[in-house]
């Protein structure tokens, strides 16, 4: 009996720790979610405060307000276009780069790989200002292009692809060569279909990074027509009157697409992280 009691206490302590750690991450999200349904003047009165009241008076008014006060659909479309392009072209470019590094022998291959690894440690913020000047001179401010181009090639994703391709059995590609396929077709018809896990990982990571990208559009974009959600939520915050309920509703709307992408690709994503971590 005492033994059982002791193990129960340990269990209790263990789960309490886990639950409180989880709460630290979940409470803000819950706060946002609940707040988005509350009347504006009740939002800041605590998370669970007046829950009874909210349960009776919950409304979608805040969501309606977001669409009325700003051109949310425009921002959403901008974000989808920019992120979609970055994800798609990023997959193409980074996969091809990783494949060239993993499978072909060319002069300067090792040096290139070293440089790419080195680039991984340079944060975007460090090069943001020079990049700002460079692209301003080219007259690219306030365009989609300027929000897409700098994020397509990504050192980290190239390394992810590189390590994954190294782990693929080489015989598959050699068999394809023997079967009459060119290197290009081999990549397209044999390598890529067997790389779903890493493709999914890179797609999701790239989507997440780009969806929340704030600093770069802040520097490059002032035109509302090409403004992405990440920048729009901060300008929405400065738009009087300050209504917390509307802001929370905006946040919920912004998170939804990410959640959908993640749920759809979750299975492959986990496989991909496991697969590339095995080799790396």
């Amino acid at each position, binding site marked *: 009996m005492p033994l059982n009691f002791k193990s129960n206490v340990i269990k209790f302590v263990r789960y309490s720790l886990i639950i409180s750690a989880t709460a630290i991450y979940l409470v803000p999200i819950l706060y946002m979610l609940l707040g988005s349904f509350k009347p504006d003047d009740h939002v800041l009165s605590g998370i669970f405060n007046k829950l009874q009241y909210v349960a009776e008076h919950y409304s979608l008014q805040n969501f309606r307000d977001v669409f009325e006060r700003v051109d949310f659909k425009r921002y959403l479309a901008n974000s989808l276009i920019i992120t979609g392009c970055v994800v798609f072209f990023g997959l193409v470019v980074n996969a091809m780069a990783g494949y060239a590094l993993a499978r072909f022998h060319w002069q300067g291959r090792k040096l290139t790989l070293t440089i790419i690894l080195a680039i991984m440690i340079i944060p975007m913020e460090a090069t943001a200002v020079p990049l700002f000047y460079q692209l301003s001179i080219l007259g690219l401010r306030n365009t989609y292009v300027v929000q897409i181009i700098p994020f397509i090639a990504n050192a980290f994703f190239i390394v992810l692809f590189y390590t994954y391709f190294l782990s693929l*059995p080489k*015989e*598959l590609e*050699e*068999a*394809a*060569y*023997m*079967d*009459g*396929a*060119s290197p290009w*077709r081999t990549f397209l*018809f*044999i390598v890529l*279909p*067997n790389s779903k896990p890493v493709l999914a990982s890179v797609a999701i990571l790239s989507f997440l990074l780009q969806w929340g990208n704030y600093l770069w559009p802040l520097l490059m974009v002032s035109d509302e027509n090409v403004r992405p959600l990440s920048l729009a939520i901060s300008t929405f915050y400065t738009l009087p009157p300050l209504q917390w309920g509307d802001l929370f509703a905006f946040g919920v709307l912004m998170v939804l697409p990410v959640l959908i992408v993640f749920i759809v690709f979750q299975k492959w994503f986990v496989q991909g992280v496991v697969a590339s971590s095995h080799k790396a």
Partner: protein
Amino acid sequence: MPIELRDICKTFDNGLKALNHINLTIYQGELLVLVGPSGCGKSTLLRLLAGLDKPSSGDIVFAGEGVLNQAPQQRNVAMVFQNYALYPHKSVRENLLFPLVMQKLDKQAQQQRLNTVVQLLSLQSFLDQRPHQLSGGQKQRVAMGRALVREPRLFLLDEPLSNLDAKLRTQIRTEITALQKKINITTVYVTHDQVEAMTLGQRVAVLKDGELQQLDEPSVLYDKPATSFVANFIGNPGMNLIHATYNDQDMTAKIGQQYLSLKPCEMEYGESLHTSPGQELILGIRPEALNLNSKKAGLAVKVIAQENLGHENLIYIQFNDTGIQIESGDTIVARVKHEVQFEVGTDVHVTVDATKLHLFSKNGRRLSKL
């Protein structure tokens, strides 16, 4: 299609010499087996034929035409890989069709070729399954099918049976021989298993450390091995190799403190025996040429171990005379009839049938009639 390898050398980037001046002709429609221990360069040679690697020097000629500048996809050569390398994301049918799609064959011709191969290899029952759903033997057949469906000029097999269990291996071995006779495509087969080599090959090339030791029919490899390596490698167990000193005056070989008359070998070896009196020789003795007796005739030996194989016994023996150097390991092996049994640890004597002796020079070359 006849194939010629002319003075092929291959040295890898890390300095490893995989192939050393290989000259080899493969006849039209022949099944040639490349055999040797791992690391002997046999798979490298196959990859050179396939075009997956390039030789450091030398020339490869297909039907009179040099192919060194042709990529694998231009050579029309098919290959079966050791691990089969079936495309995991494609069904068996799609795997078989892939080479034809790459050839841009029209749909009707594709279907025709597919049907031929499916019948030839009895693949009907699992055409729509994925490779991971197949057994080892089935995968093996699909891999053969994918190679044959293109009707290649040259058919390469890289240890195709090594992932199968012993029984299936014997079965598929006979299937491959029959199939090769039927389709009559020039075939090169790589294996490390000398039994496979002897049973499959019309001719067998034995490689060691990147050098061609001997290229001959299986029976010649067994009866007249060109080097002491081939003698020991071919046959199971291989030939016993014992160092001896030759005395030309009375034509005897001195093994430790014992003398063995080589007179019966004169017919076979003739003048080559007499060229350098006092020379060191390596005597090659097949396990079946050794006679064990308890009558104190011949060399004194001790029985170390005995293996009962059912129809025969293998007796492992060691010389009592410690001055005898054995090239082929610590012990020598005798093959005796099933009824003959010796207790481990007993002292017995062994005599040699001198007409069945093989003589090699100190560096392992077979002595031959001059």
